[in-house]
């Protein structure tokens, strides 16, 4: 599978979808892409979709944690969508699951965050 990032805005946030391998050779590029979008739309919420993410390691953890720290400054929140049991394990070990929750859908994330109008 091709390694890709897709960022799509929703009301007050960004849905960030990783495909393929999320490793050290990609994270700095992805950081720039996400930060560019964040400057454009000033989101309060980031939702990371790992449905098509076939690989993750600490580089991906660093990328997500870095964005979490930026969102925290604007009193926003981050979440995960579609974690495989493997990805959930890596994310759990890294401690991210204690600061970001996993959601069933974009809809349930919006509902919990109160971004639905």
């Amino acid at each position, binding site marked *: 599978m091709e390694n890709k990032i897709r960022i799509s805005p929703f009301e007050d946030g960004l849905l960030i979808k990783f495909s393929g391998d999320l490793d050290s050779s990609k994270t*700095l590029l992805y950081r720039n892409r996400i930060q560019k979008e964040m400057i454009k739309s000033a989101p309060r919420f980031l939702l990371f979709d790992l449905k098509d993410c076939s690989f*993750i390691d600490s*580089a991906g953890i660093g990328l997500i944690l870095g964005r979490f720290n930026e969102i925290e400054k604007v009193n926003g929140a981050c979440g995960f969508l579609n974690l495989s049991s493997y990805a959930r394990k890596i994310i759990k*070990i890294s401690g991210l699951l204690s600061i970001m929750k996993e959601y069933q859908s974009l809809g349930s994330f919006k509902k919990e965050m109160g971004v639905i109008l």
Partner: protein
Amino acid sequence: MKNKMELKFAATLENESLARSSVSIFIAPLNPTLEEIGEIKTIVSEAVSNAIIHGYNFDDEKYVTLKCELNGNLLSIVVIDYGKGIKDVEEAKTPHYSTRPDLERAGMGMTIMETLSDYFEVVSVYGMGSKIIIKKELQHVDSYEGETI
């Protein structure tokens, strides 16, 4: 199942996927679960990226060595670099400790490797290099093993 392999490659991040794919092909005869394959690929990437980033500071003239051994369902992985070395191994293993926060490293590589493996050892001499030794038992052993002629 008994097998061995060794791979030597330039210290560049592009070779991380070469390293982890090689290991996943190496263990394929044992029919590992998707979760096991994922965990092993992550372990390999953590060790290899540390060698490239911290050991060699991205000097692609240098080489990283990856050795694997299968003994029954026990997989041993060794990753070696002759780079910078680690001054204080215990400190390096501490969760969230990283000397490269500028690269947005979380300092979780050692913790992830240690948690995912059954045996984890870091041998390092400052100024000489580092050797990471990992052992992991695979659960999903091919039940027809031994019946080959």
